[in-house]
């Protein structure tokens, strides 16, 4: 009989002892495992995040399966694909749910291809029933939603977008049991890293406050106004894609679909029109403020506070107001 298990996959050790998007992954996994009546297992490839067993326990995860082969450290596409495929090969019919990250975007579809099963990325929601799986994924950068259906009980692979599903409440307490699994990681890596990326300064994903600028700043020199407000708020500077493409600012500062997905306490978007591909990276902010000269700008549809006016005047005024109060 086909497995009804739900397998959560983490390939990064994340921050604060938890892999990326761990809470949402756990909550979604719990719901699906209940719907399917199978076990909920968490497959960890590489370093074991210190807080994972506790979190997994609180969502009733049956076991954390940890593969810690030496070849799984760092950027290890081949080893991770081999290991996950051999794990799932023994669980035909399981549902694999991975957190979608920059690295998993490259690995998750390969796992599915290796297994010959279907895969959907950018998943916002999913449900299991007797006949298969129904899911909703973001498309057109978030402008639309696509419904997808897996029929039957074949193995299925999905990646959960990291800004959309709300984490459900945790259940029982205590740590999930840890099981060490030995998986075939295959031949040596075919891709080797010659020079790693180094971020200078805080990462957008970790930032509590982000002040982001777009083409409405009109000139690279005006980015200073964004920086000054960010500094006054103890925050980080973000950017829309066009000003990254035009070389005003480094690409590591880009927010959005093809940049960073952020979830700060406060996000201020200045001179940004509010294209879905940008908004997908900032609508998880607790408070979203938009400054735009056009009262009909799309950004105002999704923000908490809106200021209609020239960001070249408003940004310095807000900086002054922060400093004065």
């Amino acid at each position, binding site marked *: 009989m086909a497995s009804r298990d739900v397998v959560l996959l983490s390939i990064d050790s994340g921050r604060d002892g938890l892999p990326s998007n761990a809470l949402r992954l756990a909550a979604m996994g719990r719901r699906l495992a209940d719907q399917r009546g199978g076990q909920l297992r968490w497959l960890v490839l590489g370093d074991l995040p210190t807080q994972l067993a506790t979190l997994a326990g609180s969502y009733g995860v049956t076991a954390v399966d940890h593969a810690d082969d030496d070849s799984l450290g760092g950027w290890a596409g081949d080893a991770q694909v081999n290991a996950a495929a051999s794990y799932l090969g023994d669980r035909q019919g399981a549902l694999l749910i991975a957190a979608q990250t920059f690295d998993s975007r490259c690995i998750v579809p390969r796992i599915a291809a290796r297994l010959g099963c279907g895969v959907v990325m950018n998943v916002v929601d999913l449900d299991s029933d007797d006949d298969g799986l129904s899911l909703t994924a973001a498309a057109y950068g978030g402008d639309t939603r696509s419904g997808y259906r897996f029929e039957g009980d074949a193995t299925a692979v999905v990646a959960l977008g990291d800004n959309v599903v709300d984490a459900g409440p945790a259940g029982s307490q205590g740590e999930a049991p840890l099981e060490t699994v030995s998986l075939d990681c295959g031949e040596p890596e075919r891709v080797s890293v010659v*020079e790693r990326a180094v971020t200078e300064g805080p990462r957008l994903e970790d930032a509590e406050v982000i002040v982001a600028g777009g083409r409405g700043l009109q000139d690279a020199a005006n980015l200073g106004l964004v920086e000054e407000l960010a500094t006054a708020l103890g925050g980080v500077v973000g950017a829309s894609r066009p000003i990254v493409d035009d070389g005003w600012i480094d690409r590591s500062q880009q927010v959005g679909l093809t940049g960073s997905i952020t979830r700060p306490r406060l996000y201020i978007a200045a001179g940004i029109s509010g294209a879905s591909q940008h908004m997908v990276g900032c609508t998880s902010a607790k408070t979203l403020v938009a400054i735009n000269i056009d009262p009909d700008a799309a950004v105002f549809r999704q923000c908490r506070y809106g200021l209609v006016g020239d960001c070249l005047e408003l940004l310095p005024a807000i900086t002054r107001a922060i400093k004065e109060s």
Partner: protein
Amino acid sequence: MRVVVCAREVLDPDAVSNYVLEGKLEIGEDGRSVVNASIPRLMNAYDEQALEAALRLKDNDESVTVDVVSLGSDSADILKHAAAMGADGIFHLAADPAGLDCSAIGRLLGAWVGSSGGAQLVLCGRQASDDDQGVVPAVLAEALSLPLVTIARDVAVAGDGWRVIRATPDGDETVQVDCSAVVTISNELGDPRYPTMSNKMKARRRTAETVEPSSLGLSADELAPRVVMTSTSVPELHGQCEFIEGGSVDEQAAALVARLRQDEAIAGGSA
């Protein structure tokens, strides 16, 4: 040296976005296709950049052949555009994508690359701007048993393989692969070239070579979709924007800061 570029037709994402904003996006009777007739059909922008990456390799080395393949029911225009940009060969894999999923499309493209002589490099876009999946290149790489390098901003020949710079959220990462590879290209590569007028004229007379999917020897099971798209919809936005208006710029700024403190969005709240 043969470089294959996989390119796909998409609906202009900016036009789709505008229709969504105006609440005028029309979904067809099948419940999933976008039907607004006035939306232009273009080559997926990342695929255009993948072609640009291939042409830069050709600029540096005359022995490079660039072949562009597109699977779709109507790929004639984008293939002519590829020819105008400078592609050597243009190939139309004549399958209807509506009955296929990304896995089947990846397998078909992989089977074509394999059966048409293989390639030292296969370039794809990082994702299609309609489905945003980024799945096809991974399936293609697996089908050809080639390594996959995603989200590149630069690809250069290095030894028997390739040196690729990936645009990661943490900045540039340089990787080396010592054999043929599938590489996906991101917008950081830079703008694709514009075809010259005379190349456009010449390309108008070019017709793509048609490849019948049945000639590729894939079984019915290999082509059966694992996952089926069932619907397209426009999500509702739950905005509740409070506009801060009236008074001078400084008064507006002060009003905003007061609200943010009250909401504890910035330190020093009302407590």
